[in-house]
C-alpha cells in the first residue's frame, strides 16, 4: 500500500472539513451574540439616561429651577469619572448648569461625537434632550463602557474560535490517525496477500463498527480464496501423483515393446496394453479436471430447475438391465409425493447418481438387491442408495469417509476414490449433505438436499 502523508488521507480530510464547519458555526454564533449584546447594552444605556433625565426633570417640581440645577450638580458630582454629560440651558440658549456646554442636539435621542462637546474627539456619546418648562435639559453617556464590553466579548470569541479550531484540527487529526492505522492494517494484510501469504488476515477490534464489518468481509473472501487456492494446489499434487504412476507404467510397457521388437517378437499385445494405459491416464485426468471445475463452482451458472425423481427414474431404467446382467436387482422406491423442483445442474446430478448406482453394481456380488429411494422429508428431498451387499468393513469405511470428505493425498485406486470425490464435489455444489450408513448388511449412501429458498418463494 502507498503510504501517503496523513494530510492526504481521507479521514484527515474529513476531520479538517468537519473542523472548518465547526469553526464557521462558532464564528457565526459569535457574531450573533455580539449583535445581541450590543442591542441589549444600548437598551440598558437608554434606560439609564432616561431615568436620570426623569430624576432631573422631577427635581424641577413646581418651577424650581434652582432645585433642578442642584440635581444636575449632584449628578455631575456623583458620576464623576463615569463620563456622563449634563447641560441645562434657558429658553434663550443661555447656559444654566451642567458639565458641558455650547453644543446643539435635536430633541429626543441622538448620537454625537466627543469633538462636539470638547471631549475626546472620537468618543461616541448617546444623549437625550428635552424641554422642562422652557428650559432645555440634555443628559448623555459615553459609549466607551459599552464599546469596551463588546471589545472584550469580541476578543474572547476570537480566542475561543482559535482554540476551537486548534482542538478540532488536532482532535480530527488524532481520530484520522486512528482510522488510518486501521486502514493501514487492511493495507498491510492485502500487501501480504498479494505477496503470496494467503493466510494473512486483517486484525479485528471486535467492536462491530463498519471498518470491522469490512474487515470481516475481506477476511471471509480471503478465506475462500485460500481454500480455492489450496484446492488447486491439492489438485496439482493429485494430478502429479495419479498421473506419474500410470505414466511410468506406460513408459515401461513401451520399453518392453521396443525390447520385444529388437528380439523380433510381436509387439501387438504390448501396444494394446499401452493404449489401455493411455486411456486410463486420460480418464484420471478428466475426472480430476472435472472435480476441480465443479469445486470452483463455475457450474452454478448452468443451474436450472431439475426434477430429481425424473432423473432417478431415468437412471433406474438405464441400469436395471445392467444390474440384471450382473445378477443383481435394482429397485426404485419413490416415496416422495409432490415436491418443488430443485435448482441444480441436471447433467452433474445425473452423473453423481449414476456414479453411486455404478459403485453399488461394481462392488456388490450377484444376488444383491440395490434400492434407490427418494423421500420428501420436512428438511428437503433425500435420496438413498442402499444395498444388502457386503458393505464396507469398519476399517475401510474410515478410509472411504476420509476420501469422501477430503481429497486424499494418497490414492491407490483412482477409480473409486475419484468417483466418490466427484460425488462429494457435486453434492457440495448443490449444498447437499452426504453420509454413509451401515445397513447391516450393506451400505447406504444418503444425500440430503436442502429446499431451495428461491423455488419455494416463487
Amino acid at each position, binding site marked *: 500500500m502507498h503510504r501517503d502523508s496523513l494530510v492526504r488521507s481521507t479521514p484527515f480530510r474529513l476531520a479538517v472539513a468537519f473542523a472548518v464547519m465547526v469553526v464557521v458555526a462558532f464564528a457565526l454564533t459569535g457574531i450573533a451574540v455580539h449583535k445581541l449584546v450590543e442591542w441589549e447594552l444600548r437598551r440598558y444605556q437608554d434606560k439609564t439616561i432616561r431615568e436620570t433625565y426623569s430624576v432631573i426633570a422631577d427635581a424641577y417640581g413646581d418651577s424650581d429651577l434652582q432645585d433642578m440645577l442642584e440635581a444636575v450638580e449632584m449628578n455631575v458630582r456623583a458620576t464623576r469619572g463615569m463620563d456622563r454629560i449634563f447641560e441645562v440651558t434657558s429658553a434663550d440658549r443661555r447656559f444654566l448648569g451642567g458639565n458641558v456646554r455650547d453644543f446643539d442636539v435635536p430633541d429626543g435621542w441622538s448620537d454625537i461625537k466627543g469633538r462636539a462637546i470638547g471631549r475626546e474627539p472620537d468618543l461616541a456619546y448617546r444623549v437625550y434632550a428635552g424641554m422642562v418648562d422652557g428650559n432645555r435639559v440634555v443628559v448623555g453617556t459615553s459609549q466607551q463602557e459599552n464599546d469596551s464590553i463588546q471589545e472584550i466579548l469580541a476578543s474572547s470569541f476570537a480566542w475561543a474560535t482559535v482554540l476551537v479550531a486548534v482542538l478540532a484540527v488536532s482532535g480530527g487529526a488524532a481520530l484520522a490517525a486512528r482510522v488510518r492505522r486501521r486502514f493501514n492494517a487492511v493495507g498491510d494484510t492485502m500487501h501480504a496477500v498479494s505477496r503470496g501469504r494467503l493466510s494473512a488476515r486483517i486484525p479485528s477490534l471486535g467492536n462491530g463498527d463498519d471498518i470491522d464489518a469490512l474487515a470481516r468481509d475481506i477476511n471471509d473472501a480471503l478465506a475462500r480464496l485460500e481454500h480455492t487456492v489450496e484446492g488447486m494446489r491439492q489438485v496439482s499434487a493429485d494430478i502429479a501423483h495419479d498421473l506419474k504412476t500410470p505414466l511410468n507404467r506406460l513408459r515401461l510397457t513401451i520399453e518392453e515393446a521396443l525390447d520385444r521388437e529388437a528380439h523380433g517378437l510381436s509387439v501387438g499385445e504390448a501396444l494394446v496394453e499401452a493404449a489401455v494405459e493411455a486411456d486410463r491416464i486420460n480418464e484420471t485426468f478428466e475426472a480430476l479436471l472435472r472435480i476441480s471445475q465443479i469445486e470452483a463452482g463455475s457450474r452454478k451458472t448452468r443451474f436450472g430447475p431439475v426434477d430429481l425423481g425424473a432423473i432417478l427414474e431415468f437412471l433406474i*431404467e*438405464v441400469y436395471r438391465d445392467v444390474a440384471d446382467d450382473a445378477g443383481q436387482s435394482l429397485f426404485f422406491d419413490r416415496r416422495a409425493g409432490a415436491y418443488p423442483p430443485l435448482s441444480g445442474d441436471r447433467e452433474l446430478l*445425473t*452423473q453423481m447418481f449414476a456414479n453411486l448406482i455404478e459403485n453399488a453394481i461394481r462392488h456388490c456380488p450377484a444376488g444383491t438387491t440395490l434400492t434407490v429411494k427418494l423421500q420428501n422429508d420436512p428438511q428437503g428431498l433425500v435420496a438413498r442408495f442402499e444395498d444388502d451387499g457386503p458393505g464396507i468393513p469398519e476399517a475401510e469405511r474410515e478410509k472411504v469417509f476420509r476420501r469422501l470428505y477430503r481429497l486424499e493425498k494418497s490414492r491407490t485406486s483412482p477409480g473409486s476414490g475419484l*468417483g466418490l470425490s466427484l460425488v462429494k464435489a457435486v453434492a457440495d455444489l448443490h449444498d447437499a449433505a452426504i453420509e454413509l450408513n451401515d445397513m447391516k448388511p450393506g451400505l447406504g449412501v444418503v444425500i440430503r438436499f436442502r429446499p431451495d429458498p428461491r423455488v419455494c418463494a416463487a
Partner: protein
Amino acid sequence: MRILYIEDDAKTAERVARGFAEVGHVCDVVADGEDGLFQAMRESYDVLVIDRMLPGLDGLSLVRSLRAAGRKIPALFLTSVGGIDDRVEGLEAGGDDYLVKPFAFSELQARVNALARRPPPVSVQTILQVADLKMDLVRRRVRRGETDIELQPREFTLLEVLMRNEGRIVTRTMLLERVWEFHFDPRTSVVETHVSRLRAKVDKPFATPLIHTVRNVGYSLHAPR
C-alpha cells in the same frame, strides 16, 4: 470426401491426415485460425474439424464467423479442456459435434462420417429401412419381415440411431451421448447391456444378424454383405 482439418499441433495433424487418406478421403491441414477461416470460405469441404485453441483465431470465433457468413458446412470441435462447459459453448457457437482430446482416430473417423452424410434436415424421414428391418417413426413401430418387434422407448432410440447411421460405425461414446445423453464415461457396461438386449429382440429370432460389433470401437448396423 473433402475434410478441412484446422490444427496447430503438427504431429496430430499429420497422423489424422494420414488416417483419413488411408480410408480414401482428402484431408487438408491448416495450422492457423485465420488461414483456416479463409480456406473454409474459399474452398468447398464436406466436413470441418477444428481445434478449439488455435493461433490467430480461436475455433469458436472461426465457426461463428462461418455461420455468420451463412456457411452450413458441418463442423466438429476438438476440445482439450475437460469439456464440461466447452461442449455447450461449442454447440452454441454453431458446431455440430465435439470430441474431447485425446481421442482415438477411429472415434474421430466415425463422427466425421456421421456428420458428412447427415441427411439434409429439410427432408423429414418417417420410415427407416435396412434390409427387412423397418422402423415407423410416426407410429413408433418396428417390424422385421412379417414380425412386429416390441421395444422399450430407449431401445427404440438406440435402434433409430443405429439405423440412421446405416453402414457406418457408431461408437460407444456416440451412443452414450445420443441415446442416454451421458456426457461422461460410465464404469459399467451400459452400452453393451442395452445393445445385447436390442440384439435379442432384433437379431436373435432371425436368420441374419444386422447389428455388428466393431471391436474396440462400437457398432454398425447394416444388411449382410
